[in-house]
């Protein structure tokens, strides 16, 4: 599942890998901001929390043991973000007993509770970054094939006609770019599909 490259998550464990950190921040800053904002935190406080998460990550990344289980980094990152939010909630005056209980009860959770937007936001951000990268590195015609057939679900014959190629070329291109997307996903320790079969196999 992993390509020959080290994944971003592995590279970023080395604090001296500046490129990896830059990439890491670029990918995860919008995700963390969106998540914290979705939890009802205002813009200025969200920026404080996100900065706090990155500061924690500088220390914590070295401790993170990557195995290749899908979604493990995703959950781990959530734990770090969650801990930052719990701390923030405590620092800000817990408003009611209910919130106090929330903070107490959620302090040491292993994974996002059901209904939490984290997993969706995370996968969305990863796909966004991955697709952007693949689009930028692909030939325009190849991208048009992939985009039209796979993302937009348009008929292969129409795409082929528009681009002046055979339907076979449409599928060859789509297949190649799909493989690239798969590889890029592995950079984030994510697998592209979340098919029930695969999920069942992992359990």
């Amino acid at each position, binding site marked *: 599942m992993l390509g020959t490259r080290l994944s971003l998550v592995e590279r970023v464990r080395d604090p001296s890998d500046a490129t990896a950190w830059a990439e890491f921040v670029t990918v995860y800053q919008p995700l963390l901001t969106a998540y914290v904002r979705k939890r009802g935190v205002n813009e200025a406080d969200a920026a404080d929390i996100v900065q706090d998460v990155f500061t924690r990550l500088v220390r914590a990344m070295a401790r993170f043991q990557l195995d290749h289980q899908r979604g493990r980094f995703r959950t781990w990152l959530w734990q770090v973000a969650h801990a930052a939010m719990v701390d923030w909630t405590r620092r800000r005056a817990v408003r009611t007993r209910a919130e106090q209980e929330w903070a107490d009860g959620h302090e040491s959770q292993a994974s996002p509770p059901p209904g939490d937007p984290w997993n969706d936001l995370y996968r969305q951000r990863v796909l966004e970054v991955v697709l952007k990268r693949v689009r930028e590195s692909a030939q325009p015609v190849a991208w048009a094939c992939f985009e039209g057939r796979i993302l937009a679900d348009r008929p292969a014959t129409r795409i082929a006609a528009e681009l002046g190629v055979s339907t076979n070329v449409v599928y060859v291109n789509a*297949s190649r770019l799909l493989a690239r997307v798969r590889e890029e996903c592995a950079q984030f320790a994510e697998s592209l599909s979340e098919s029930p*079969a695969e999920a069942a196999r992992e359990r």
Partner: protein
Amino acid sequence: MNDSCPSDEELLAAATGEEGTSQVRLHAEQCAACGERFEALRGEIGALRSFSRSLDASQQTQLLGQPTADDPPALDRIGRYHVVGILESGGQADVYRVLDPDLARPLVLKLWRLSPHNDQAHREAAINEGRLLATLDHAGLPRVFDVGVLEDRPYLVLEYVPGRNLEQCFDRQRPAPDEAARIIAEAAGVLAYAHRRGVVHGDVTPRNIMIDAEGRTRIIDLGLARFDDIWEADGGRIGGTPEFLPPELAAGPRRPAGPAGDVFGLGATLYWLLTSRGPFAAASVSDSLRRAREGDVDFSPLQLPGMPGRLSRLCRRALAIEPAQRPTADELARQLERLAKRRPKMRRDVMTVVILLAALVAIETVGWFLGRRAKPAAESKVDDGRAVLLSVPAMTVVRRNEPVNLSNVLPLRTGDPISISCSVQPDEPLVLLWFDAQGELRILSADRRKVDEVDGLFYPGWNRFEPAAGSEGTDLIFACRGVAPAESEIRGCFPLGQPAPPIPENLLLRLSRRTFDRDGPLEPQSEAARQVDRAEQFIRQIDDRLRRHFAGVRCLAVPHRAALEAAEAD
């Protein structure tokens, strides 16, 4: 897999549902390896399509056309620092939130814009200034971690101070005079340290004084005004904030700011804390500058009842037009500290002393002895065996479109937009009650939020006002600390339908730890004094009953009068 197995693209075509691929699908049903590939492809396509559908039209264009605008700051790296956000973007410099992979601390990086004098000499001067700042080490100052030049632009890397500046802390509610004294005393102490090390702030205003997450007073942007000057170095610029500008700096082409300028800034900030206005507040910047040049400060707002005379005299000295007549930062710190410390000590014997002196001393003096002493955190004492902070509720009213503390504009008038606030130790349950001039009780549902390491409760909400209803008489606002009992229990503590006795219209009563503060002039042995006695007795009975249910009780008694005629009100 064997030779008869379909290629990747054939299998993909089948997985997308392409027509004429039934043979491939048939094969996938029989061949285990291809069946698995087929299912995986369908899963991937499903994931991509649902992602694609989840983007709205505008995002689609971004994704498929232009590079995404979603990607954070234009700069993702500055030297070895990673940008995680932009804090502010100013005329001369940009301030970024950054991350240093080797240093697990939140940092900010201030990167100056290119200067018109882009030469080696200017850069070196700027760097030397930065190095001087980096030698400072004081808990009240954010540390400077790095200074350097990047693509011809100087930068500083500083500790990030999460917290709120004074403008944010006190935009709606003035601090009590002794709390204001404490804050400015701490700030003056920090600046005294900087002055001893030869560093001048150059732009001391409520925005540059912060209360951090631990409640400490900290000064930001120290020395940066000078840094700006060196970097810009165009001589004719008048820097600083006009409303708070020392006269000597407003006078003309900029002279280097001296320590006395910072003391003026402290005095101006103290003036702002006490009165809600900068000393040179005016409708336009040029008016502010004119007033600053003339040193035209209106000291009459400092003559309010409840304002300690020493504090207002000290404020006046710090705001002297002549720099030489101002105290040093060190002296200001010491004097203010003494003032801030003296008051809680006084409270124990204040009643006896005041009663003895009251007959002899002018009424204003009594006024400031008794002046708003109820609020600050520093004074908290043991209530129910624990050290707890609980303030007397405060009422803010809007008069002439400006929120002011009710104690400055007594009495309360029906229809006045009002806001009630109260602070309590974090996490402590608190109930706010309003027993109005008709003898009706309301349990107020207030907004709770953190202000400077305490919890503030705000009714009708943070930054919100509601018109004062009801009739003439006395309104009682209670703050009760502890878990609320049943509503009927609370109601049982009040003589419903029987309102509190009247109190004079220029006087507020505060009850704290069973002791009353009378905030306002009151002639001993007068009819007014007897009125107040009766009101106190009435409140004390309620207080006694509430204390059976709550760990701590505070009360504010407010004289309430009918609305003025519109013409009279303006």
